[in-house]
């Protein structure tokens, strides 16, 4: 039995109390004395040359303090990109400048042109309407394939083309892969789109910049998943403010899902303008503005092929993908379709030869970057759709085809042909568990029941793998990352025994304040309520890399374990002194230090008090105090995996798909708080089902966003999803981090889209609509109906 507030217990979340009573403190709740407001005048055309910006009338408007244009930022750097991808010829990617305010050209609808700072938000907006813009509209490029055609308009005039990079992975395997296809008994291919999405955390982005001349210090309050990363990128590359003069605070943040990882122009603007205006500057995004300024996600077009031998063993996979970068490179954009996608193309299978080609393309659209799953959903969708299609074409059971090609439990660690080494896993176990929970054996009876009501029932299967716990710094450095990906923690024990933990892992819904306290409470044996978890403020926490890639517990938690172990080691020395014993004889259990084999003991607070009131203390050997910092840099990624089953009913009259049940059997390694893990999976499933059935970010040929608000971008609602069964009883602990954890934040969004689409195809085929080979996401009723009747 787990300690009631330790590892393995479903402890209720402590942060909920403030959120449920209206006492959360989100960035928009922060109002500083003398605060001013900025409104960004954004481009309403996708591509245009700026011939002139006349701000004179606007400057005379009531309340206007200053209007900024790119001319005010001549000394500032562009918004940097944090990852450099090298193309298949060994050349670095093309990397255009991303100015804070548009310079010379506008490159997407929403590109900020001018910024009006005024006494009130409405005054700033009123004045923005009075700015006289002279913009010569240019032909935009919106479609990725057309963007690479000869003579296509260029998004960036100073680049040779709209191609950011043409990446081959593993380039050396290409010939062998092609050879395998030549020898294959069966080749199955599929062309598909991974639809463009908008992350849509419910809290829109907010930034408040403040400047204090007393210490010549800048403070930025921002809706970020990683305040230290913002401090580094903005301070070092954009505004030239050294870290010791720059504080970045990310207070309560209302969800991120990737979109709040990146450093955005509005953050740099508010930080900079506060010093110019000599007053705080606040920006609060509207939802409409979020749609045209938050980085989007996904947006891949892929052709994938699978070669099988006569016994249906997978021989090789090759793919060709176009990945949309949008108009500028967002912070981690180049890494998503490459290192977070290509390296996962082995899936759960023993495919000896793989070649992945990715062409990253600039278009006149909002920048595209990581969104929950980031590259791994794209990989999983391709593989799991293709395996399903292969089973259908070969006339074999989709479960059996997967089982036949799964990496077997005894084959770990497993070196894939796409660079990574899976440490553990048991895919047969998760598949069996899912089928059991889904009552797959009785599906046919349920289908017959649906058929009586005129409905088509289908069951879809997907098995995913992801690489989480991002990431070993030396490895990602070789792959082009311009940052390390360790995490930090400080554990400060106070004199009376309470503990303050400072972590670089930011929590914006994941419940770190609860989970991390459980870990420390478990290790020391004290009440979790005596432990406070602090995050989100660069002024009190060592350099941390933040929260994304399902890394918080695997990497941030490991740093906390390390720092706590250091604390325990020192505390044992103090206890040894107090108990007049050797440190190696001291045991810590349930918050009490005792000498092995004796009844001599001292409790936790006795030791902590001695550390700060060192009257009886080994001062000659040990410093007073009890506070330790640790950094943890993982030696490998973690590899969560799982089997997902989706049961749907399809209305043949309208094409509408209803989710009936969704079974997730995940292997996340060890679990600290099962309640929180379940919640993470639920949320991921809703987003994955949203991608599969509802969500679609669409531009017209002029580069106008057609899905620019919740009137057209269909968010999953309470009546769109249901019937989740989540299991995490299949456990193969991670072999290389101290908690044996793998991460659970993205799994749901990675594994669910192919399960939903496979279920729809299954329903159609079982009902005789065998001509439908694939339907691109989202599977709207209109698309399903058209496919059925096509």
């Amino acid at each position, binding site marked *: 039995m787990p300690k009631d507030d330790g590892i393995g217990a479903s402890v209720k979340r402590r942060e909920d109390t403030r959120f449920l009573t209206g006492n959360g403190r989100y960035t928009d709740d922060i109002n500083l004395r003398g605060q001013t407001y900025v409104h960004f005048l954004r481009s309403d055309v996708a591509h245009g040359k700026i011939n002139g910006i006349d701000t004179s009338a606007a400057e005379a408007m009531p309340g206007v303090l200053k209007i900024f244009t790119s001319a005010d930022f001549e000394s500032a750097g562009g918004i940097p990109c944090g990852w450099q991808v090298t193309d298949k010829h060994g050349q670095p990617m093309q990397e255009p400048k991303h100015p804070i305010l548009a310079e010379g050209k506008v490159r997407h609808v929403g590109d900020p042109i001018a910024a009006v700072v005024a006494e009130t938000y*409405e005054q700033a*907006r*009123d004045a923005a*309407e009075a700015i006289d813009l002279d913009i010569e509209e240019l032909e935009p490029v919106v479609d990725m394939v057309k963007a690479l055609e000869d003579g296509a308009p260029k998004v960036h005039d100073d680049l040779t083309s709209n191609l950011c990079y043409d990446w081959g992975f593993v380039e050396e395997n290409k010939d062998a892969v092609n050879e395998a296809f030549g020898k294959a008994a069966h080749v199955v291919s599929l062309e598909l789109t991974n639809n463009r999405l908008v992350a849509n955390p419910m809290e829109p982005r907010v930034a408040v910049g403040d400047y204090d001349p007393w210490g010549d210090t800048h403070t930025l309050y921002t809706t970020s998943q990683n305040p230290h990363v913002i401090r580094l990128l903005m301070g070092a590359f954009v505004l030239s403010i050294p870290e010791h003069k720059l504080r970045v605070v990310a207070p309560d943040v209302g969800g991120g899902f990737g979109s709040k990882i990146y450093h955005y122009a509005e953050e740099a603007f508010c930080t900079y303008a506060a010093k110019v205006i000599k007053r705080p500057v606040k920006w609060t995004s*509207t939802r*409409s503005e979020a749609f045209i300024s938050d980085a989007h996600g996904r947006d891949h077009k892929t052709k994938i092929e699978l070669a099988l031998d006569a016994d249906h063993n997978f021989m090789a996979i090759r793919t060709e993908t176009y990945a949309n970068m949008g108009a500028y490179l967002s912070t981690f954009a180049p890494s998503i379709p490459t290192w977070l996608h290509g390296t996962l193309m082995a899936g759960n299978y023993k495919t000896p030869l793989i070649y992945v080609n990715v062409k990253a393309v600039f278009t006149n659209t909002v920048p595209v970057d990581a969104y929950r799953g980031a590259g791994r959903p794209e990989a999983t969708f391709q593989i799991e759709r293709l395996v399903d299609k292969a089973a259908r074409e070969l006339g074999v059971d989709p479960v059996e085809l997967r089982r036949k090609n799964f990496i077997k439990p005894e084959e770990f660690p497993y070196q894939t042909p796409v660079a990574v080494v899976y440490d553990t896993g048991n895919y047969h176990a998760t598949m069996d568990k899912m089928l059991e929970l889904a009552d797959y054996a009785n599906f046919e009876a349920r289908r017959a029941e649906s058929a009586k009501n005129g409905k088509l029932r289908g069951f879809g299967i997907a098995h995913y793998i992801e690489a989480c716990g991002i990431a070993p710094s030396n490895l990602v450095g070789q792959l082009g990352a311009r940052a390390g990906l360790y995490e930090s923690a400080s554990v400060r024990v106070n004199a009376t025994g309470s503990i303050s933990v400072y972590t670089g892992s930011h929590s914006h819904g994941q419940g770190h304040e609860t989970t991390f306290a459980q870990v420390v409470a478990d290790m020391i044996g004290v009440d979790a309520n005596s432990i406070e978890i602090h995050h989100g403020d660069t002024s009190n926490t060592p350099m941390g890399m933040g929260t994304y890639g399902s890394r918080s517990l695997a990497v941030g938690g490991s740093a906390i374990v390390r720092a706590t172990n250091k604390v325990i080691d020192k505390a044992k020395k103090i206890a040894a002194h107090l108990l007049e014993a050797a440190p190696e004889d001291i045991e810590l259990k349930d918050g009490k230090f005792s000498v092995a084999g004796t009844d001599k003991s001292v409790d936790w607070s006795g030791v902590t008090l001695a550390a700060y009131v060192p009257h009886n203390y080994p001062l000659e050997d040990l410093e007073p105090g009890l506070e330790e910092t640790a950094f943890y840099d993982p030696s490998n990624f973690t590899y969560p995996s799982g089997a997902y089953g989706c049961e749907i009913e399809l209305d043949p*009259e*309208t*094409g*509408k798909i209803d989710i009936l049940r969704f079974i997730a059997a995940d292997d996340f390694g060890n679990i600290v708080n099962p309640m929180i893990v379940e919640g993470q999976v639920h949320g991921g499933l809703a987003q994955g089902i949203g991608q599969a059935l*509802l969500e*679609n970010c*669409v531009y017209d040929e002029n580069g106008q966003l*057609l*899905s620019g608000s*919740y*009137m*057209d*971008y*269909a*968010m999953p*609602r309470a009546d*769109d999803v249901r019937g989740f069964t989540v299991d995490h009883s299949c456990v193969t602990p991670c072999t290389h981090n101290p908690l044996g954890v793998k991460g659970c934040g993205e799994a749901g969004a990675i594994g669910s889209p192919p399960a939903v689409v496979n279920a729809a195809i299954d329903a159609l085929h079982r009902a005789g609509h065998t001509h439908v080979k694939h339907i691109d996401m989202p599977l*709207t*009723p*209109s698309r399903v*109906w*058209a496919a059925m009747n096509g």
Partner: protein
Amino acid sequence: MHNFEFVKPSSVADAVAALANGEAQPLSGGQTLIPSMKARLNAPEVLVSLTGIAEMQGVSRDGGALEVGAATTHATVALEAASHFPGLAGLAGQIGDPAVRARGTIGGSIANNDPSACYPAAVLGTVATIVTDRREIAADDFFQGMFTTALDEGEFITKVRFPIPEASSYAKFLQPASRFALTGVFVAKYASGVRVAVTGASEDGVFRWAEAEAALSSNFDAEAVAGLSVPADGMISDLHGTSEYRAHLVRVMTQRAVRAAS
């Protein structure tokens, strides 16, 4: 949004006076108007709230007709019309979501004439009469294409009079983002014949499907329209559905409405 002067009269007469100013616009719940003002697509100088006028509130039975005050919320209609005219109550209960229904009003919805709004289907699908501050307008004359009505500048609806049908129902296929109708069909059966009004589908806004009315008038059975179709030409085509799909839904939703009404 741009600022404006806010006026809240307590009688129709005061509202008429307030709206006499050409720069004034009525506000009747504002569930569509306020978002459009936020987007600065609409910027009245004076906004005249009609929700404080007692004589424009409520649902009342007058013989064979149901009169609904123009400032009556969807939530109130869903509740109070249920025993008199369940088809109308059912439609009102499907508009937007509970919070929208608590503020949005029938008058506001009809006057706006959004091509995907639900209420226009009920008004056109009955032989309703729209009563304004100055005249009465027959439903067939009221809707004049998307976002366009017979209302003059400054004219506002005070109530809507619905002849209660023998049977009626509204079948709505949801546009999943906006919660408006991707296609919605209101069917009403009277002794004199059947009316079928379609919203959400046509580029011209709400319309009557004459062929279905004829077929259902002689045989009020879903199968009576099974072989009918509306042309895809002129139907809305967007992210959520092609014009062919909407044309198909017109028939499917008509059949569903008939089944639910029977």
